[in-house]
């Protein structure tokens, strides 16, 4: 069987298991009821997005040193997949908050930090799109480094901002205890999401590499087309 198919099947299996864990196996939460089950998608997505951005940071640094096309393709792939998972967090947050607290958006520390993260990496993708020169990978890699350096500052500043202006916390505050079975469901879903993300990154990477190679081929073809000329010497 092809690699992609195997990968997809494993991912599907893990996600299904995760779904079962989240929807059936895990106990119903005491105060919020079944709505709380969104937690098993909301939190793993956030962690997965962060993992993607971490990989993007590493790939960007590798690119700045080695200038290899693979590093650049990997950076692009992880950024895109990371933004997707970030979007999931931002969508599931309000879906959860509305039934429970009656408001769409809470300036909860995690949710707000994810929003800023999303903004940073969307701006990265926009930069890649709008860049004109052949040096797009370099400029993008530099922005990626800046963006990731910002991440701890984002979390730190928003966290303290929230403690000075408290509001409902989505997904339990820091250090709140969690039921063992819930923890299990959470972890299984996290693994499933990470594998899912890995598959997406891999597929996107292959696509980007193919695009790079097509470009190379065009360049080579254009320069090979030049008719041979004679060198005149005395």
């Amino acid at each position, binding site marked *: 069987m092809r690699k992609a198919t195997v990968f997809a099947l494993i991912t599907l299996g893990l996600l299904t298991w995760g779904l079962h864990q989240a929807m059936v196996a895990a106990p119903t939460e005491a105060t919020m009821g079944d709505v709380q089950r969104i937690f098993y998608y909301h939190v793993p997505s956030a962690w997965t997005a962060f993992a993607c951005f971490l990989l993007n940071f590493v790939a960007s640094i590798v690119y*700045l040193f080695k200038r290899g096309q693979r590093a650049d393709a990997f950076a692009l792939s992880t950024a895109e997949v990371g933004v997707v998972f970030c979007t999931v967090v931002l969508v599931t947050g309000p879906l959860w908050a509305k039934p429970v607290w009656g408001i769409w958006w809470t300036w909860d520390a995690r949710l707000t930090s994810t929003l*800023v993260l999303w903004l940073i990496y969307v701006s990265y993708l*926009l930069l890649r799109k709008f860049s004109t020169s052949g040096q797009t990978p370099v*400029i993008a890699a*530099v922005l990626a480094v800046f963006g990731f350096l910002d991440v701890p500052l984002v979390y730190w500043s928003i966290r303290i901002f929230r403690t000075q202006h408290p509001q409902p916390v989505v997904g339990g505050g820091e250090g709140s205890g969690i039921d063992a079975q819930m923890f299990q469901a959470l972890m299984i879903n996290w693994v499933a999401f990470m594998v899912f993300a890995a598959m997406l990154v891999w597929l996107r990477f292959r696509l980007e590499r193919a695009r790079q190679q097509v470009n190379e081929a065009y360049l080579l073809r254009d320069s090979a087309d030049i008719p041979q000329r004679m060198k005149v010497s005395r």
Partner: protein
Amino acid sequence: MIAVLRATLAKDLRLEWRSKDAVNSMLFFALLVAVIFSFSFDPTAEESRRIAGGLIWVAFLFAAVVALNQTWARELRSQVLDAYRVSPASPNALFLAKAVGNFLFVALLEVLMTPLFIVFYNLRAIGPVWQLALVAALGTWALVVNGTFFAAMSIRTRSREVMLPLILFPISIPALIAMVQATTGILTGELSPRFWINLLLVYDVVFTTACLVLFETVLDAE
């Protein structure tokens, strides 16, 4: 390197003095923003102190972008950047000169705009005023150092003027939160700005270092 820095800064100040491009547009823009804000947010005396911190910094931020966008305009116009790149002068000297120049312009703007805000919003600082100056200095540098750097990056993009705020704002959010909270804290006396001042300090150190390390890479990207 210091010599080149000083020479470049002097040259930029002289150029600006002769044309007054950036300063005029910045000042007028800032005035407009102040007036529009006072129509949009018409607060009572107590409330005004609470939101003034945020309003002032948003106004400064937008006005700063006007200045930042033309940081490299003159150099690009006549391909002067090439002359600099070909010379043995250090790229970081160029960067720092531009950043310091921008800092001075935006600081001038803040000095001129603050009285306007004080008048429109009947402000009076309850906390220590010297801390406001410190917050302003650190916050302005945070915006300007990244802004000058990102302006250089957006040279190689389409829609240059739009690209700059697009990549600058998200990354500046921690600094903006800090500036606003610190200013509000000093104006209302309700919270201590010390933590936020420390955050601004860390932000400034981290990103100034990043800019100095990576500027040459960005300058040479062609």
